[in-house]
């Protein structure tokens, strides 16, 4: 009922009696089907270099490693340097699922519990323009892994670091199963300025965001 009312008020305001003529709506559908690329901010740096610089600029940290054992070692390094417990909750996606963790590491899979301190997940992509990682929800990588733990470690393949958001949209459109329930674009650790405009990290989400750039050719 309300839908009908709202649509007819919109049409009246736009000086129309009913829906758009077929010719016009076909044009709009074509615009939706082949989205126009708009102006994107230009930058001269290489994608990886820019990504690292931007992520560090928003209080994220970065390490470089190879896949598999390289990821296990880099996570170990991270925990040791910060004196964190050898306890992680991890996704089971393509990048993280097969990592050979050391015997000392206590490893959990799937949804984190509220007391889990450190999570490790694989990214779908990363965006050089803004230092952003892109994470998709899936049975292998539940969204709460990106939000609940205090320390979030994200691994991204070097070749998946794209220049702009628009490159991510193109990759998403090519996925056979379409949009996942959640696409998280995360740019640094959680923060707030709600107390006298003072920037404070670790509001509700992770206090630390650590990104592993995975490069098997290095």
């Amino acid at each position: 009922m309300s839908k009908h009312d709202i649509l007819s008020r919109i049409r009246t305001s736009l000086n129309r009696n009913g829906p758009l003529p077929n010719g016009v709506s076909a044009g709009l559908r074509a615009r939706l089907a082949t989205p126009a690329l708009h102006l994107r901010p230009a930058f001269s740096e290489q994608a990886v270099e820019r990504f690292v610089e931007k992520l560090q600029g928003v209080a994220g940290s970065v390490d470089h490693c190879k896949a598999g054992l390289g990821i296990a070692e880099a996570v170990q390094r991270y925990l040791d340097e910060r004196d964190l417990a050898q306890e992680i909750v991890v996704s089971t996606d393509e990048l993280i699922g097969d990592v050979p963790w050391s015997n000392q590491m206590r490893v959990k899979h799937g949804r984190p519990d509220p007391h889990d301190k450190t999570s490790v997940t694989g990214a779908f992509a990363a965006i050089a323009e803004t230092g952003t990682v892109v994470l998709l929800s899936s049975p292998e990588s539940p969204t709460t892994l990106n939000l609940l733990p205090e320390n979030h470690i994200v691994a991204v393949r070097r070749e998946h670091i794209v220049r702009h958001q628009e490159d991510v949209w193109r990759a998403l459109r090519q996925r056979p199963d379409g949009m996942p329930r959640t696409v998280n674009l995360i740019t640094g650790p959680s923060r707030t300025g709600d107390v006298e405009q003072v920037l404070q990290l670790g509001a509700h989400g992770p206090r630390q965001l650590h990104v592993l750039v995975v490069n098997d050719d290095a």
Partner: protein
Amino acid sequence: MKATSSTFRQNSREALLDDDLQQALSKMGFLGARKRVVDALPEWEELRTTAREIKEHTLAHLDFYLEEFEKNVRANGGHVHWCSTPEDASATVLSILKEAGARKVIKGKSMAGEEVGINEALEAAAIDRLETDLGEYIIQLADEPPSHIIAPAIHKTKAQITELFHDHHQVHGKTERVTEVASIVNEAREVLRDGFLAADAGITGGNFLVAETGSVALVTNEGNGDLTSTLPRVHIVTAGIEKVVPTLDDLSVYLRLLARSATGQEMSVYTTLTTGPRRAVDLDGAAEFHVVLIDNGRSQWLGNEFHEMLRCIRCGACLNHCPVWNSVGGHAYGWVYSGPMGSVLTPLMIGLEEAGQLPNACTMNGRCQSVCPMSIPLPSLMRRLRFRQHDQGLSGLGTRIALAVWGFMATQPRCYRLVTRVGIGLLGLLSGTRGRFRRLLFAEAWTEERDFPAPAGETFMGAWKKAARGRK
């Protein structure tokens, strides 16, 4: 919420004398940050133009894009509810909650939710509500409305927050006063974590609705919006119908403008696209996904003289740059929206009778328009509201008499010249050697606070003639 916009003058006077408020307002830090990131982006002006064009294209085909959005939300298993009025919207949210048996609700920040009075509706239905944005949580404890659209507790000092937490957190076993920003944020994080985990439903706003995919884009820095949309069983989004954008590529243009304009960030920490409920195989995420679309007058501004207001993306830049807002804060405006955008939206939503003082609380300095990422001509819109106010006979008797006299004189050049010559000469004489008035009849409102500078003793026309004679 009950509006107090009709007493704006009185509210402002009190705000100016409120030391805590003035101290809190002096911390405003968004301007410098915004300028730095805007200056660093050579494409800024072109992005603004593109954003305006996309929005105008979308508004011109709003019915099409809303139906397309609905179709794609449904295709992904979500629900769309169309609500004409604030009452419809609150009733819809309540019925979704009732159907789901939800008793505990957590909320992310939503100005549309504030606008339709979700909080009051939840309270009336005895549903437990917990605000999760730190600023919103602070004002929930203080039982106050937001004073800024992106920094709702910007009017509170740290000392006031310390006391609020001390009063309300003892039940959570927090007996020590927290006085540092880090410890305040930590305590809120700990206290709110339990609320997140216990909630049955989460209500958030939506910054953009993407027609192409049926996704809701939500932009936050704390991560509270994501926890609110992910942890509970039911996720409800409240958003105005003007929030729809055609494609993800269009969305990118807005995202580049929004965070820069709002907080001076290139990108907010969390930009999240939510498309439908959790899939059958997912391990988390809300099992129910509802989008409540709110009209509340918007469909009627389409194509009329306030059409441009529909471009607003609620970044808050106009508030941050407004000398009036910076002097009196948001509460003086007496309703949900404040500052320049609020001075346009409030009269449109709750009426000029109640909110007629707001479009007059403007110095017409034009800063709001020049920083607006969507190039909304806010001063012109406020002027149009003043016209409307006058046409509806809502302006004061003094204003109407003065305008009538002025209107008569301005169309009678001889009479105008005579009266101004006599008047200005007289004022010049009366002021004597001081060159200013301590008090002046009909201008007490001015002279109460400062002196009125006396005219130089000659009219512009007189001076012009003299100069013309000199040139001959």
